[in-house]
């Protein structure tokens, strides 16, 4: 194995010394001691992981995190189980923020632009220069503008104070902030806030384009609530959107509404509810929706009137229900009206106050609508801005080109960036004073009102980047420029001052020291929510949005894992397959098969997409889950700067937007253009991890109809999978009857193999359609330990994955990447089928027709088979079965015959085709300082060896060791694999099958929904899947 990648010895000594040295000699920079989660500071030792409570800064949701450090390096970010937003889980973007911290393309030191090139400066010189310029700007009679990202908490307070003192303006730029909903809430309920949506309580959810499992709102909390709701068999979910998103793929029914028709659809539902007398709050709103009869709505939206009626009735009956307003993809020029229509729908059935609650509203007052950025751009254009300071935000990329921001910025005499990366906006600037990353500096966050969350520096500042916290830089600038009189002395003092204020309010009698330690240990303080009740104030004018341009296809721009572009320089996210297309490292355009046929392109071929504003060329992904009159392009790619991974990868679809915005809220209308598509001559370079999305009756992903589940046909006496028994197989299964359901169901149930009466399966018939009894008799208890002595092991590790809870979000994939040192390989190698990820989310598009879609997700990792085909064939025992039931892989013994991968039915083994761990090689995947993230408990694999999921053996060993130290048996759920830990919807359960009381035992043995993938191969997998519950939305 390669040793060079991990650390040089000197680095190790430096880091190993940190914990102790920092505590004793005082030479380390932060005067604050590091307070690990649940550990007293004097115990800091190399070799032991310490956890620091912090807050995620990747979107506005403000999830509480725990940062795992080893030898002074942050090596993993997980959700903080005590934090009310994340409750222990974290999404893919949050987990990948670590790579933002260890981004090799961060700015190394203050930089000054001289001519066309950047020149390094010392901090003193740079601060002096910037102060002079700001001082001059302040006295010039013109304004100073400060643009920051949304950092609710102390930083926003400091920024406001700074601009007030400087006499400038402070603009908080968040490209994807849902201003329209905020504005709609103000108009309809009189509260300018974004409420908390309680999915868990809802019995029926209709989402009007809201991608609440991906980017919209607070995805982790919403996914958790959604999974809890979906655990109830009767709770339904309908997605109303022109293009089937990941969120929509999880719905029971997809209503392929015409782009922009969500508003009409919502109003049509209100109409039906009132007309049917099902409204609980119907007073005074009937006339608003009078025109929206189901028939009229059908004409506007292409949604059959019966569907509207059916959904409306169900929505009213299934109280409390929940209607979710739209995300970025549906944000049209009538965004406020659309959101207001959804509000009305929630209001009339009485959901407001129940599933829509304003007591835990988002703390987003400071966020400026896009119109303000435009105003600033105008002001800059007119020469009224003497200096521009940017921190965290990247408007030059994330704002549509028509805002004119970039061009206007050229007219500002002095532009200063406090960004830590060379993004598009920073490239426009004259001077960069790089800020420290959230993981290396103190801060706090109150993303949700009343949830005060601390952001601790979990490690020392990275030595290769000479950075300072943005707060300190702002204070130093203010002092230097002569307006710092009212500023706090240091950033730290400012933050602690704020917390002292909070201590007065929420200290609960604890002395300050105790309170402060508690805060840092737990991650913050959470106020009790104050009950807020709202009432209907009135509706805006409802008008259908228009699309511009001469094309024949509506253009949908959808946000993805790169969010507003900030994720694009993180290889984990670049190489994370898109949940829909499974494309990595690039952009694509989704197109209905018929549209593609009309344009004359096939999957993967390149097209030119043209609008009034511009054109882009990108490969086609032929996707049945989109309307024929619509195309969709993901956002967040196509950077012209930012770093080696982002630059030049994909296209920036914002270039396709012509000036259009929602006048009521001042938001960008992302859904506003029509496009024309023509075939391009360019050769495609699309890299996709899963090309075939059909199961071909292989029953990889299975569903169970809710009726079958409720009828309890899956009797306790029978092993799982018996629904599959064809009607004719009854004789052999001992009079087991499941036939009535099978005739009408999808997948395994709708297409039973037709067998003549009296047919009994031959003994050698081993297709998945046969009940497992025929394969090997009643399933043996997987506790058996193979050929090892019966008492050799005390555990039998296993996993249960609930496909009913799994949303396909891929947070587990990033968690696994981080935990297990999995390298990225880049687009060229993905194209050649060499991706290294240990988990893949398989997506099967069983059916993509509107209303009857059936998309199934299966997280596929090593199944740790009891009778593993891979083991037998290894000539050197590099893979074998350990007594605890793990399918072991010994990397240093592997010679690389790759036979195991050939023989693995699940194809979950990845092979190191190149040297990803040798710094001198082109394929090196851990460019300094990305290698700082490597988990020292996991071997970094070298060229030519096979690797795969080990159920996080390092965590198992650690857990067993801890139990042994405390001289007690292992507790269930004490050991969690990385994927389980990160899963927002808690779909993955890991545990010990020899512990009968463990969750995994109960699920793998007792669940009516259990099945094993490719069970007919008799591999005896340790991973039990639970079938997704398949529901039908009926009134």
């Amino acid at each position: 194995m390669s040793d060079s990648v991990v650390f040089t010895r000197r680095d190790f000594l430096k880091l190993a010394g940190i914990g102790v040295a920092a505590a004793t000699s005082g030479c380390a920079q932060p005067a604050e001691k590091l307070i690990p989660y649940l550990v007293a500071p004097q115990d800091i030792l190399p070799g032991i992981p310490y956890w620091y409570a912090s807050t995620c800064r990747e979107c506005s949701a403000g999830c509480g995190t725990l940062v795992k450090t080893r030898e002074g390096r942050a090596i993993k970010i997980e959700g903080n189980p005590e934090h009310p937003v994340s409750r222990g889980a974290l999404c893919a973007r949050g987990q990948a923020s670590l790579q933002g911290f260890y981004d090799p393309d961060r700015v190394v030191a203050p930089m000054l632009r001289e001519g066309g090139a950047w020149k390094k400066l010392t901090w003193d010189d740079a601060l002096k220069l910037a102060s002079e310029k700001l001082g001059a700007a302040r006295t010039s009679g013109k304004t100073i503008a400060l643009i920051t990202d949304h950092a609710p908490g102390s930083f926003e307070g400091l920024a406001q104070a700074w601009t007030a003192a400087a006499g400038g303006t402070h603009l908080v730029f968040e490209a994807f902030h849902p201003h329209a909903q905020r504005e709609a809430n103000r108009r309809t309920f009189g509260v300018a806030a974004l409420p908390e949506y309680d999915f868990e309580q809802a019995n029926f959810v209709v989402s009007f384009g809201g991608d609440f499992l991906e980017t919209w709102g607070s995805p982790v909390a919403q996914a958790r609530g959604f999974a809890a709701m979906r655990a109830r068999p009767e709770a339904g979910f309908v997605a109303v959107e022109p293009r089937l998103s990941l969120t929509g793929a999880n719905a029971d029914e997809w209503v392929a509404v015409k782009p922009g028709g969500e508003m009409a659809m919502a109003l049509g539902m209100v109409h039906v509810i009132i007309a049917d007398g099902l409204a609980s709050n119907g007073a005074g709103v009937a006339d608003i929706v009078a025109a929206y009869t189901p028939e009229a709505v059908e004409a506007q939206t292409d949604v059959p009137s019966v569907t509207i009626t059916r959904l409306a009735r169900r929505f009213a009956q299934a109280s409390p229900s929940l209607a979710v307003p739209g995300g970025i993809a549906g944000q049209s020029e009538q965004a406020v009206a659309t959101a207001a229509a959804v509000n009305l729908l929630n209001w009339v059935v009485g959901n407001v106050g129940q599933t829509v609650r304003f007591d835990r509203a988002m703390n987003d007052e400071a966020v400026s609508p896009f119109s303000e950025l435009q105003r600033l751009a105008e002001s800059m254009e007119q020469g009224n801005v003497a200096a521009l300071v940017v921190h965290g935000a990247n408007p030059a990329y994330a704002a549509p080109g028509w805002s004119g921001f970039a061009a206007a910025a050229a007219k500002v005499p002095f532009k200063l960036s406090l960004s830590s990366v060379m993004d598009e906006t920073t490239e426009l600037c004259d001077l960069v004073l790089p800020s420290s990353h959230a993981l290396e500096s103190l801060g706090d966050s109150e993303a949700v009102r009343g949830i005060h969350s601390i952001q601790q520096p979990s490690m020392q500042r990275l030595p290769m980047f000479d950075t300072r916290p943005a707060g300190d830089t702002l204070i130093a600038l203010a002092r230097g420029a002569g307006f710092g009189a009212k500023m706090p002395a240091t950033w730290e003092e400012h933050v602690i001052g704020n917390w002292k204020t909070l201590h007065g309010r929420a200290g609960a009698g604890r002395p300050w020291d105790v309170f402060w330690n508690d805060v840092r240990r737990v991650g913050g303080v959470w106020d009790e929510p104050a009950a807020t009740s709202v009432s209907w104030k009135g509706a805006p004018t409802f008008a259908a949005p228009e699309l511009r341009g001469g094309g024949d296809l509506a253009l949908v721009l959808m946000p993805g894992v790169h969010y507003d572009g900030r994720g694009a320089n993180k290889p984990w996210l670049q190489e994370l397959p898109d949940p829909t297309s499974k494309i990595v490292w690039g952009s694509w355009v989704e197109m209905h098969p018929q549209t593609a046929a009309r344009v004359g392109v096939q999957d993967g071929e390149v097209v030119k997409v043209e609008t009034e504003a511009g054109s882009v060329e990108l490969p086609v992904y032929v996707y049945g889950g989109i309307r024929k009159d619509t195309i969709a392009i993901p956002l967040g790619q196509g950077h012209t700067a930012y770093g080696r991974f982002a630059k030049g990868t994909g296209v920036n679809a914002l270039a396709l937007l012509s000036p259009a915005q929602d006048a009521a809220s001042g938001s960008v209308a992302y859904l506003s253009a029509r496009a024309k598509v023509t075939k391009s001559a360019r050769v495609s370079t699309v890299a996709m991890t899963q090309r075939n999305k059909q199961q071909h009756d292989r029953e990889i992903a299975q569903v169970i109809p809710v009726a079958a589940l409720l009828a309890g046909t899956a009797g306790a006496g029978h092993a799982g999978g018996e629904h599959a028994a064809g009607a004719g197989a009854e004789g052999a299964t001992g009079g087991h009857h499941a036939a009535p359901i099978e005739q009408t169901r999808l997948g395994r149930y709708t297409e039973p193999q037709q067998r003549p009466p009296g047919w009994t399966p031959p003994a050698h018939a081993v297709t998945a359609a046969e009940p497992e009894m025929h394969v090997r008799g009643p399933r043996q208890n997987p506790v058996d330990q193979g050929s090892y002595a019966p008492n050799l092991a005390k555990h039998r590790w296993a996993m249960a994955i609930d496909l009913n809870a799994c949303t396909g979000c891929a947070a587990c994939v990033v968690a696994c990447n981080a935990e297990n040192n999995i390298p990225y390989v880049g687009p060229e190698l993905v194209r050649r089928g060499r991706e290294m990820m240990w988990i893949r989310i398989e997506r099967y598009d069983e059916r993509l027709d509107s209303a009857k879609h059936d998309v199934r997700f299966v997280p596929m990792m090593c199944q740790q088979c009891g009778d593993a085909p891979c083991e037998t064939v290894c000539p050197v025992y590099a893979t074998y079965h350990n007594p605890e039931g793990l399918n072991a892989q010994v990397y240093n013994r592997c010679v690389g015959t790759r036979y195991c991968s050939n023989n693995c039915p699940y194809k979950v083994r990845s092979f190191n085709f190149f040297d990803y761990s040798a710094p001198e090689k082109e394929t090196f995947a851990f460019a300094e300082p990305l290698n700082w993230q490597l988990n020292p408990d996991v071997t970094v694999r070298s060229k030519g060896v096979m690797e795969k999921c080990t159920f996080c053996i390092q965590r198992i060993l650690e857990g067993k060791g801890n139990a042994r130290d405390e001289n007690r048996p292992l507790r269930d759920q004490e050991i969690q694999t990385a994927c389980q830990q990160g899963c927002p919807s808690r779909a993955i359960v890991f545990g010990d099958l020899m512990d009968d009381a463990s969750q995994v035992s109960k699920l793998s043995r007792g669940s009516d929904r259990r099945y094993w993938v490719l069970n007919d191969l008799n591999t005896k997998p340790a991973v039990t899947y639970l079938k997704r519950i398949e529901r039908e939305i009926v009134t």
Partner: protein
Amino acid sequence: MIKKIDALVGKLLEGPKVVHRGVLGVFYYVDDVTTLVTTLRGLGHTNITVTSPVPHHDVEKALGQGPSLVRWVTFCGGFLGATAGFSLCFYSMYSWPLVVGGKELTSLPPFVVIGYESMILLGALSNLIAMLALARLPQLKAPAPYDARFTEDRIGVWVPGDGPEAERVRDLMRGHGAEEVTLHA
């Protein structure tokens, strides 16, 4: 240069002179040799060496050769090989038991392949060794006078001995159609 090396190699191949005592007859016809050998054996000569380009059964019969010992060695080698192959498998299982694919630790069917191949390998090697040892190969110096024609189309018969006995043999050979008879004394 090459010539010098050639000469040197030639000298090396030549080796020291060995003195043989006996009679060498060169024959063309096989039946001549057969009758000669029969006659010689009748006269009590048992140490007859017949050198020929191809083996001749008639001559072999006349010489009264029994079956070769090689087969026993080969059998022992093969038996040993099979035993060794199986033992290796069992020993490795015993020394560090590792379960693969849910199979029994001592899974016989796969070990058959190992035992079988080992049997053939050791059988073939012992066969080779036995053949070389019994045929006294490799040898640098022939135990009897040798003529290059013996690999072409002539048959040589060598009868060791000296004195009058040798002369009698020489005459006998001449009488049996020898093309050429040399007396080495």
